[in-house]
């Protein structure tokens, strides 16, 4: 049976924390990529969001997201030709200890040099609480033809990922 879902690399943050997690020299030998991340931010809030950049690019990210936070009415947000891509949510410094977020990001046709790149994710950030949580579904587009060879994940508010935060990059083949 063909191996169609292969772990490329995993990074786990050490005791000093990290301002970002960068996957570089991503091989172009798969059809799609999946990132699964379990992150927590150090900033002194309950929740924080995660940003992403492809190839260190600071342009061309457009997105549409629906979200629901802590029982408020569902909302939506959009980002047109922005300088970052949204990449999930996560608990932060004042959340219950040892709670991390859960996010899966799907990036099809990442190695193509002729088409724009789409990105989608589902994510949950929680606080082991019925009242502190954030859920998001997102579809996006990076308007760039370049093959994706590097991916950077980082906290939205210039914070750091805490120890034991982790991100895994998987390659997907269609046969």
């Amino acid at each position: 049976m063909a191996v169609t879902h292969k772990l490329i690399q995993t990074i786990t943050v050490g005791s000093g924390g990290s301002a970002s997690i960068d996957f570089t020299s991503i091989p172009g030998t798969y059809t799609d990529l999946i990132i699964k991340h379990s992150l927590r931010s150090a900033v002194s809030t309950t929740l924080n969001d995660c940003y992403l950049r492809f190839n260190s690019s600071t342009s061309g990210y457009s997105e549409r997201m629906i979200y629901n936070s802590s029982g408020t009415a569902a909302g939506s947000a959009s980002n047109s030709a922005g300088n970052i891509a949204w990449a999930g949510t996560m608990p932060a410094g004042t959340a219950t200890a040892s709670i991390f977020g859960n996010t899966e990001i799907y990036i099809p046709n990442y190695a193509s040099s002729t088409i724009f790149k789409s990105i989608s994710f589902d994510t949950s950030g929680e606080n082991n609480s019925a009242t502190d949580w954030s859920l998001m579904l997102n579809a996006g587009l990076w308007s760039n033809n370049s093959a994706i060879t590097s991916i950077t994940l980082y906290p939205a508010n210039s914070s750091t990922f805490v120890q034991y935060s982790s991100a895994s990059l998987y390659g997907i083949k269609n046969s």
Partner: protein
Amino acid sequence: MATKLIVDCSTGITTEVELTAEEIAQREVDAAAYAVELAEREAEATAKAEAKASAVAKLAALGLTEGEVAALLA
């Protein structure tokens, strides 16, 4: 100085390096944009909650019971 973790997927080697001044500046720009984004989300949520409360009050003024209003909103 803040550091970042870089894994080279071709070798599996992970290195920890300091952020450049340019990267730090970009993070600050991103953080400012994020603050604006959060404020917009909060304003939208507040506006929806206020609109819902107003609608419920108007339905009650028309004579609907709490159960009937709840059924409409379900």
